[in-house]
């Protein structure tokens, strides 16, 4: 087929296309609401939620939510093949470094025995499974949106979609989770979010290629 013929055929296909940003705006609110509903039905919120939301333990909700917002901003940029995403990536990086700093602080101020005791609860495994489950729909939505884009690095883009979804999943799960110590949060929430990041990277490497 000659190139002119291909151009003629392509030009006849004027089906409107939805931009990746618009797909994010469409899918994520729905995914978020469904995740919250799932939590309400199958996990229930912690009984002291009203108190918690106005005191220190609210960090368990705010930190993952901040991570999700930063990842959302980065994902929007990465969906464009020509975009430079230095600013977006550094916000995610600063948040990540902050968590690493908190981890170092936690390891320095807690003995291994104390940490082991914190994690010696069924809720720990529960968290590692629940967050990815609650993140599944947001992950699907984020990857679907990124697929409309043209990310130069599919694996990285998938990982960022995973971070976005993991942040949402963790923020939602925090409304249920009764454990507030820093080391519990870093181990359980951090671990669970990394699981979703890894999932996103693996799936992204397959579905975001173009």
């Amino acid at each position: 087929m000659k190139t002119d013929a291909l151009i003629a055929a392509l030009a006849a296909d004027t089906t409107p296309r939805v931009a990746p940003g618009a797909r994010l705006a469409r899918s994520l609110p729905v995914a978020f609401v469904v995740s919250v509903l799932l939590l309400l039905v199958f996990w229930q919120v912690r009984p002291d939620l009203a108190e918690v939301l106005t005191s220190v333990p609210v960090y368990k909700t705010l930190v993952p939510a901040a991570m999700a917002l930063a990842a959302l901003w980065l994902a929007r940029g990465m969906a464009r093949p020509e975009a430079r995403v230095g600013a977006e990536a550094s916000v995610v990086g600063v948040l990540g470094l902050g968590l690493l700093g908190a981890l170092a602080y936690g390891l320095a101020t807690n003995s291994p025995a104390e940490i082991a005791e914190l994690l010696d609860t069924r809720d720990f495994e529960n968290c590692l499974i629940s967050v990815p489950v609650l993140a599944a729909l947001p992950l699907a939505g984020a990857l679907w949106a990124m697929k409309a884009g043209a990310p130069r690095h599919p694996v990285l883009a998938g990982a960022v979609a995973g971070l976005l979804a993991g942040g949402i999943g963790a923020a939602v799960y925090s409304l249920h989770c009764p454990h507030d110590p820093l080391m519990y949060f870093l181990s359980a929430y951090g671990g669970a979010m990394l699981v979703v990041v890894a999932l996103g990277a693996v799936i992204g490497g397959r579905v975001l290629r173009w």
Partner: protein
Amino acid sequence: MPPMDEPSWESLMRAANRGDQRSYARLLGAVTPVVRGIVRARGGTLGPEACEDVVQEVLLTIHLKRQSWREDAPLRPWLYAVTRHKVVDAFRARGHRVEIPVEDVAEILPAPPGEDPFEARDMARVIGRLEPRAAEIVRAIGIDGESAAEAGARLGMSEGAVRVALHRAFKSLARLRERMIE
């Protein structure tokens, strides 16, 4: 730089996004020599037919990924990024490694205009793998120059159905190409 009375690529693409086929054809026509120049500069040793295959692959990608261009951004950086990504990918799939430094892309001269003597083979082969009706629609509109309405009248389909089929055909083409070449 295009002459002053030429509409910018950005305005052509914006018009295309609103369903203006003529602007879109014009844009693709203007973009093709630029893409061809980049492909030949990088993969000239493959021979002109194989280069034209890659040019067509890039055009198909531009088409399927055009929504990733933001309407308030300049079009050229987007176009170069898509072309660069796809050219590297296409040559890799054919067993050739090419490196294209980002800065270089913009400096490659377009291929001389009015030069499309090559019947690229891959696209015809992949179109042959589409389901017959989809292949017929692509050929009718591309090669025979029918409009969607004319093709629809001949095939007993509505114009809208032809457009939907055409759109799906391009998505399948991209998938089939990937599978056939790798």
